[in-house]
């Protein structure tokens, strides 16, 4: 049995279903992220684990014990809030030690634990400061220490970094991951930031409109999206309409050109499908092949698809250069990403180019059409 188990969870607010058919089994020490846009039900699910919301249906078990109807103060679950929620009338040490004080632990034990946690969050010697004397990043560290002080069975983090600026966010998420690994505590992390979820998690639960779209490792979520929502929400994606030419052979027609995919196609010839291409999977060359702008990491794969197009514009995103191209008579936009380097010969807007990508990179989207994992996994291995 899993350490944290949510079975058939539903939550309704009046007529609105906030969470539906939610099933999750997280192992002890696992770091699971709930990823999705605002209003997808991820925070509501987290609050149900904490006990602040009662599920309309379903059950929640922690370490084999049903806690569905247990009050929040009896669950021994630590929570870190988006707004820190530090008690303003208490200094840092009192905030961290509050849970232990409530549990009537001896003062010496409380002091020792507070000192340990201050060291863990790198705020030694600042126990006598008040929350308003700390920066946002420091306040969130104290909130984390406060949640850990009670040695919770499960640690819940509700978008803990969203109020911080970019640099501190990156530094703090490394710290969170390091602390989580060090303590081996089962953690559920809510975020709408895909980068955060991909970097931190052992597994990601992608949610949309109260439902689970996909559960998987960051690698699986990014490379093998199960639905068009996951594909479009995680990472940048080129989604294009195509028509099936020969389903059994994986032949499609895109912008007047025939391409191939290794994904299984469900549908007869002439059926419309949506195909997805990651920008970093596309190679970009001049028509005569003299200037190679971008190389597909899957270049080793056989039978590359080729689409002629035109450069529309170029955006420098620091380490990455994003080239926006258009293909076909309808000028379908296709983004191509390549690593920046000083020798990169970026073509001018309006230049003719050729886009190349292997069939393995061409995913067919839809709830019923799942990319062929075997081929895609082989492609991913070739990439690595």
């Amino acid at each position: 049995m899993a350490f944290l188990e949510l079975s058939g969870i539903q939550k309704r607010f009046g007529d609105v279903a906030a969470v539906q058919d939610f099933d999750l089994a997280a192992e002890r020490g696992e770091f699971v992220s709930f990823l999705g846009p605002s209003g997808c039900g991820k925070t509501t699910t987290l609050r149900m684990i904490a006990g602040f919301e009662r599920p309309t249906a379903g059950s929640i078990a922690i370490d084999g014990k049903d806690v569905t109807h247990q009050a929040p103060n009896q669950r021994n679950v630590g929570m870190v809030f988006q707004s820190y929620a530090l008690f303003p009338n208490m200094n840092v040490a009192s905030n961290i030690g509050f849970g232990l004080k409530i549990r009537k632990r001896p003062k010496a034990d409380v002091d020792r634990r507070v000192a340990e946690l201050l060291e863990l969050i790198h705020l030694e010697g600042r126990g006598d400061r008040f929350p308003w004397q700390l920066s946002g990043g420091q306040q969130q560290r104290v909130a984390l220490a406060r949640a850990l002080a009670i040695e919770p069975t499960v640690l819940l983090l509700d978008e803990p970094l969203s109020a911080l600026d970019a640099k501190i966010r990156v530094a703090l998420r490394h710290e969170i991951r390091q602390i989580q690994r060090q303590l081996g505590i089962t953690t559920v992390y809510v975020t709408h930031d895909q980068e955060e979820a991909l970097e931190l998690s052992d597994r990601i639960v992608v949610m949309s409109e109260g439902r689970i779209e996909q559960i998987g490792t960051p690698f699986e979520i990014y490379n093998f999206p199960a639905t068009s929502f996951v594909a479009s929400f995680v990472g940048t994606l080129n989604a294009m309409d195509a028509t099936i030419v020969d389903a059994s052979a994986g032949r499609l027609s895109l912008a007047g050109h025939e391409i191939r995919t290794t994904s299984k196609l469900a549908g007869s010839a002439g059926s419309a499908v949506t195909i997805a291409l990651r920008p970093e999977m596309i190679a970009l060359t001049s028509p005569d092949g003299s200037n190679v702008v971008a190389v597909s990491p899957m270049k080793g794969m056989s039978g590359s698809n080729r689409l002629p197009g035109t450069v529309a514009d170029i955006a420098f995103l620091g380490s990455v250069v994003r080239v926006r191209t258009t293909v076909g008579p309808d000028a379908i936009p296709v983004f191509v990403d390549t690593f920046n380097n000083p020798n990169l010969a970026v073509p001018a807007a309006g230049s003719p180019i050729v886009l190349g990508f292997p069939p393995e990179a061409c995913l067919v989207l839809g709830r019923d059409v799942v990319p062929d994992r075997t081929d895609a996994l082989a492609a991913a291995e070739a990439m690595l």
Partner: protein
Amino acid sequence: MTETAFARNAQGAPPARPGRRFSLTWLGLVPFLVFSTLFLLIPTAYLIVGSFVDSTTGDVTLQNYARLTEGLQLNAYLTSIEISLVTALVGGIFGFLMAYAVISGGPRRLRGPLMTFSGVASNFAGIPLALAFVFTIGRTGLVTAFLAGLGINPYDGGFTIYSKIGLEIVYLYFQLPLMILIIAPAIDGLKREWREASENMGATTFQFWRYIALPILMPSLLGSMILLFGNAFGAQATAYQLTGGFINLVTILIGNQLTGDVLHNKGAGYALAMGMVAILGITLLAYQFLQRRSERWLR
């Protein structure tokens, strides 16, 4: 180079210096300054000077202040302080409970009507308020007559609206809504996450109030009660209309000293007023101190 630059400056107009342009925006303050001078500064100065003058001889004296600790004057201060304390405490506690019930617990649609009523009621004082109570729970008031019809006449049990307790009830009519108005922002500032965080760490509702909510709200609660105290201490017209000067309050005694036929001693009246100014000044300073502390926490 220096000479050239100097010559150019001497010949031409001096260059415009940013931020030094003559601004007329301060003119907007003129009505306030005139009003403050005429109705606050000059009367206060008149009061200060007058409190050191013997009304009979015109000599400079400290006798007016010395008398503040004697008989009638001391009694007036004690009565005013007692009534102000009682109405501040009762109004403060019940006003807080009402505001909390509506803002945090009760039906939120009641909030708008309660706030509107509080805004009106907290300013409903003086003669109209006194008459309203006389007409309702006076000896022959509407409610008294109704209760008497039911066989429960409060006046038979010794109650009278024209007493100290009656005055306190009347004062509560504006003290309670004033408390609701002042404390509402502080209750709004009490974050839901604080309660949830405390619950999350194992605290009960009682422990949340004991260790977190009450300490956070305490500066606001005390500050608001101090303001209620000052509000009651400075009231005059309501008490005068209701009791006809029967209850010896500082404000009524000042009126008697300045314009009365029996107790006519302007110097003593001015000294009484100065004592009142000092008490109200202290309450305002205490309120501001506590408010600043509370704002820092509730930010």
